[in-house]
């Protein structure tokens, strides 16, 4: 237990210091790794979003972006945001000193890894996990940051968002999320389940069976927590999935409908129009044209 406490103190102190420096240092940089190919099987790639902070020294970093790969010497007070399925590869130098922290956002857990590299070896590595519970603030900031992949020129906004994200984590380290009640926990598990399975055939009965509860209890839970029924919630996540596919892929509308869990393409188009006042094609065109 003591070791965990010490890790937490160290990571908290380092993070606080980074946030101050990142805000004050005019040369501090925020880089983005976006979808792309790096020709190296050892490049870090996960289906969870991540970011890297360089706290001290120099850390050469290769990362994917639209124009292929980038190779930057990351200096102290700089950060790299790595969208899910984007690549990066830190190249620790033999003689250099580097101190960095990596963050990975799992479904229910935020993992933090602190690394101190010196004299050609890792002299200190510490890890810490924080449960991700309660309001989904980090998830929404990350979603916003992923969109910058398509418009990196609005740099100050991206910077503010990133500062918001690390400030939020700093707060969580000091004020660990409280253990949720069984009801809240069940609700949050069901939401995660719906998000992960929204492309499959899904209804109240299937989810109720999965969690061993009655379909009526699901309705009750959803109205209480979201003021939104099960079907509306499911449609919401399906539409979110469709929007992201419209933006990030060249897939046909009919395929996007199917991949987002709508079995009827026409129904999907009608619903999409109703919710967004635009057809899927208009939505895609508008999105792409705004970044020309």
């Amino acid at each position: 237990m003591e070791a965990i406490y010490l890790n937490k103190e160290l990571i908290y102190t380092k993070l606080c210091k980074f946030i101050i420096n990142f805000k004050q240092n005019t040369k501090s940089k925020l880089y983005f790794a976006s979808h792309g190919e790096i020709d190296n099987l050892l490049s870090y790639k996960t289906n969870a979003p991540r970011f890297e902070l360089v706290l001290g020294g120099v850390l050469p970093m290769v990362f994917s972006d639209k124009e292929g790969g980038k190779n930057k010497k990351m200096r102290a007070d700089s950060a790299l945001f790595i969208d899910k399925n984007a690549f990066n590869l830190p190249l620790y130098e033999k003689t250099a000193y580097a101190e960095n922290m990596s963050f990975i956002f799992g479904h229910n857990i935020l993992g933090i890894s602190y690394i101190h590299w010196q004299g050609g070896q890792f002299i200190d590595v510490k890890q810490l996990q924080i449960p991700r519970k309660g309001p989904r603030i980090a998830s929404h900031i990350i979603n916003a940051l992923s969109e910058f992949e398509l418009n990196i020129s609005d740099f100050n906004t991206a910077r503010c968002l990133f500062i918001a994200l690390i400030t939020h984590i700093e707060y969580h380290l000091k004020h660990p999320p409280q253990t949720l009640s069984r009801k809240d926990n069940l609700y949050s598990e069901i939401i995660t389940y719906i998000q992960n399975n929204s492309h499959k055939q899904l209804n109240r009965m299937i989810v109720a069976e999965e969690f061993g509860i009655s379909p009526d209890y699901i309705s009750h839970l959803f109205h209480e927590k979201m003021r939104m029924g099960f079907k509306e919630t499911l449609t919401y996540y399906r539409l979110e999935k469709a929007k992201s596919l419209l933006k990030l892929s060249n897939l046909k509308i009919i395929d996007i409908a199917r991949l987002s869990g709508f079995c009827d393409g026409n129904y999907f188009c009608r619903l999409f129009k109703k919710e967004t006042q635009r057809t899927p094609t208009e939505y895609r065109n508008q999105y792409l044209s705004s970044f020309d």
Partner: protein
Amino acid sequence: MKKKTSLGAVTACVSGVAHTYMAAEALEQLARRKNYHIQVETQGALGIENLITSKHIKEMDCIVIAADIVVEKEERFSQKRCIYIDVKSVLLNISLLETMIERILLAANGTIMDLR
């Protein structure tokens, strides 16, 4: 009918943010290709996930420890066929591991193969 070969694996890398999970994926792909049953425990920055319990271990024919660091609770695998390999080799040359698994399955329980 012959019982499906069952593998257990633990993956762990130094920083625990990516290679641990990438190696787990590579091992799962290997198992699909070879029609093995597999359970991969990851010991990374997200903590220990998909823990292999002693009940599971009993059913397993071979254990793969793909790690760059000492893994937690390694002693639970004594008496089992064990392959030790570094994470890099799993990511760069999975076919080597594939061959070694085939080979160790012919050997006696408790055989250890160290490829690090």
